[in-house]
C-alpha cells in the first residue's frame, strides 16, 4: 500500500528537524560554544524518523551516544535540547547530563547512553515492563554496528527472544565503530544475521530510504504489538560527519570519494525527490518547511543561550530519590 501524503510529509519533517538541529549543533560546537563531545546524526536521519513515526504514547526508545536524532524523531523539544548542550538550567537534565545523556521520560526516551552497548539490556527491561503491565506498548532499541559486538547486546537479544518481548532492535549500521571499518571489527556483513542465533527475524533495509525503513519498522512493530516477539532491523546507513564533531572529509580512516558517494544518497534529498515526483511537496514547499524549522532552531538557540546556568545546589541534588 503506498504511503499517504500525510505520512510522507511527516517523515520528511522529522528528518529535516534532525538535520537542521544537528547542523546547528555542529556549527556551535565548531565555534567553541558547545563543550564536551558531540556525536552528530547527520546522514542517518531516515533510520530514527522511519522508526519513530510508528511510536506513540507509552512506547519507549533507548538511545546511544549519538542520540540527538532519536530524541528529535520522537518529538524532543529543541529548546531543552540546546539548553542541555549549553549546560543550562533549562536543559533536559539541568545541564548535568550533556549531549551523551539526554533523557525525556515524558516522551518515553529512556536516555542517550555514554556507554556503547548500554542501551539494549535496558530496552529489554522496558519491553519486559510493557508485557508485564499488559500494555500494547513497544520499545525501540537503537544501537550501532560497533555496539553489536558488545556482550550486552547478545545477552539482551537472547532474553528478548526467549521471553518474546515487544521490542524492535534497530541497528544503525553506519559502517564504522569510531574509526574502525565494519570489516575490521566483525566477520559478517549483515548484522541482521545475528537475530537467527536468538530466535527472531533479522531484516536488512536501506537506511538511506526513509520509506523503506518506515515500512520495515512498521511490520516489525506491528508484530511486536501482536505479541509475536522482537525483530532485529538492520539499517545500512552512513554518518556524513566525523565520529565526534563535524569535519567528516579529509580524514585518514575513509576516503572522500566514499563520503561523496554516500552523500549522493542523502536520505533527505532522496525523500524530497520522491515527494516532488508524487506532487506532494515541491521545491518551494520543501523550502518553506525548512525555513519554519530553521526559525525554530534559531529561537531555541537564543532561548538556550539566554538561560541561566544551574545553581551550584544542583550538584548535590538527585543523587538519591526521596
Amino acid at each position, binding site marked *: 500500500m503506498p504511503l499517504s501524503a500525510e505520512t510522507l510529509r511527516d517523515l520528511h519533517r522529522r528528518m529535516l528537524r534532525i538535520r537542521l538541529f544537528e547542523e546547528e549543533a555542529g556549527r556551535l560546537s565548531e565555534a567553541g560554544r558547545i*563543550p564536551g563531545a558531540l556525536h552528530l546524526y547527520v546522514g542517518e536521519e531516515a533510520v530514527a524518523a522511519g522508526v519513530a513515526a510508528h511510536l506513540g504514547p507509552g512506547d519507549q526508545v533507548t538511545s546511544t551516544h549519538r542520540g540527538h536524532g532519536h530524541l528529535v524523531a520522537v518529538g524532543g523539544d529543541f529548546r531543552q535540547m540546546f539548553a542541555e548542550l549549553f549546560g543550562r538550567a533549562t536543559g533536559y537534565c539541568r545541564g*548535568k547530563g550533556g549531549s*551523551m545523556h539526554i533523557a525525556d521520560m515524558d516522551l518515553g526516551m529512556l536516555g542517550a547512553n555514554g*556507554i556503547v552497548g548500554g542501551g539494549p539490556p535496558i530496552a529489554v527491561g522496558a519491553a519486559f515492563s510493557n508485557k508485564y503491565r499488559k500494555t500494547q506498548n513497544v520499545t525501540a532499541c537503537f544501537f550501532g554496528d560497533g555496539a553489536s559486538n558488545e*556482550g*550486552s547486546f547478545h545477552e539482551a537479544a537472547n532474553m528478548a527472544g526467549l521471553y518474546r518481548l515487544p521490542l524492535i532492535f534497530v541497528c544503525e549500521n553506519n559502517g564504522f565503530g569510531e574509526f*574502525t571499518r565494519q570489516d575490521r571489527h566483525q566477520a559478517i556483513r549483515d548484522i541482521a544475521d545475528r537475530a537467527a542465533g536468538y530466535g527472531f527475524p533479522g531484516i536488512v533495509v536501506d537506511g538511506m530510504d526513509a520509506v523503506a525503513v518506515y515500512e520495515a519498522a512498521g511490520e516489525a512493530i506491528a508484530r511486536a504489538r501482536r505479541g509475536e516477539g522482537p525483530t532485529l532491523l538492520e539499517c545500512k546507513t552512513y554518518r556524513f560527519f566525523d565520529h565526534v564533531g563535524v569535519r567528516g572529509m579529509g580524514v585518514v580512516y575513509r576516503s572522500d570519494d566514499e563520503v561523496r558517494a554516500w552523500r549522493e544518497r542523502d536520505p533527505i534529498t532522496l525523500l524530497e525527490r520522491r515527494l516532488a515526483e508524487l506532487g506532494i511537496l515541491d521545491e518551494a514547499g520543501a523550502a518553506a518547511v525548512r525555513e519554519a524549522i530553521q526559525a525554530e532552531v534559531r529561537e531555541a538557540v537564543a532561548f538556550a543561550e539566554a538561560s541561566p546556568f544551574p545553581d551550584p545546589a544542583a*550538584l548535590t541534588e538527585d543523587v538519591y530519590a526521596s
Partner: protein
Amino acid sequence: MAIMRMRDALREALREEMLRDERIFLMGEDIGLYGGSYAVTKGLLEEFGEERVRDTPIAESAIVGIGIGAAMGGLHPMVEIMTINFSFLALDQIVNNAAKLLHMSNGQINVPLVIRMASGGGSQLAATHSHSLEGLYAHFPGLKVVCPSTPADAKGLLKRAFRDQNTVIFIEHTANYGLRGEVPDDPDFLVEFGVANVVREGTDVTIVGYSGSVHQAIRAAELLEQQEEISAEVIDLRTLRPLDMDTVIRSVKKTNRAVIVEDAWKFGGFGGELAAQIMERAFDWLDAPVARVACKDVPLPYNRNLEFHALPSEEDVVEAVLGMFKE
C-alpha cells in the same frame, strides 16, 4: 635526555619494550590505524605490523579476557581499554581471573599482562565518562596499580610493567598526556614499583597525591609558600599497589600533618586507606587529624561550573592545609 610529552614517553616505552621482547603485543579499540584515542600508540602499527598491534571490536570484556588467555599462553600482552570508564565492562575478567588465578591455582597460573587505561574528569564529558578508579583497582589483592604523573615516570613505570610477572593496571590521567618533561632515553631506564617520589621537600605539612592530583598538590604547595609561608612537602605515590607507605610515614613524622588529594570520591576511597595507615603508624606524631581533599560525593556533571565545583582544586588543598593550622 629528551623533552617530551607524556603520551610520547608512553609510546617510547611501548616501542622499546616491543623491540626488546617479541612476546609483547598490543590490542585495543582504535589503537592501530587510528593510533589510539590519545595518540599513545600512533605509528606502532606501521612499525610493528598487524600481528603485534591489533585493532579490536568494541568488546572490553573479551579484550581483557584475551589478554589473560594470551598471557597464559606464554605471551606478555598489553591491552588498552580506551578509557577507565569502559573497564567496568571488563571488571569480571580483571578481578575474577587476572587478579586471582595465581593464588587460586596454587601458583600454577600467572598472568603477566599490562592493562592501560585513560582516566579522570574535567573535560565536560559527564558522569559516564569521567571516572577516577585508581583506588577501586587498588582494592583487589593480586593486581598492581600504577598511576604516573610525569613523562619520565610514565616511561619508566610502563617499561617496568613489562618486567613484571603480574597483571599491572596502568592508569593514565587524561590531563597529563600533554605534559612535557625530561625523559631518559636509556633503554634500561626503569622506575621501580613501590617507590614514592618526594616531589618537593617541606617541613610543615605533607601533601600526598597520585596521578592527576599530584599537580594540584604541587600548585597548592607553591601557593602556601608564597601566600602563607607554609612549607609543604609533596609526595607522588606513583604506584598504589605496591604502596610505599614508608616514605609517607617518614614525611609525616617530620611535618606532623598530612593532607591527601585525589580526584576520586572520598567515601570508601583510597585516601581513607592512607589516612588509616598514617593513623596506625604515626598517630603520636600528628598535630591535626589527617585531611582528605577529594571529589564531591556525586556523579560528575556536564556543566562546567558544576564539574569544577565537584572536582578538587589547589584552592581546596590550601584551605584544607590552613584548616590544620587554625586553633
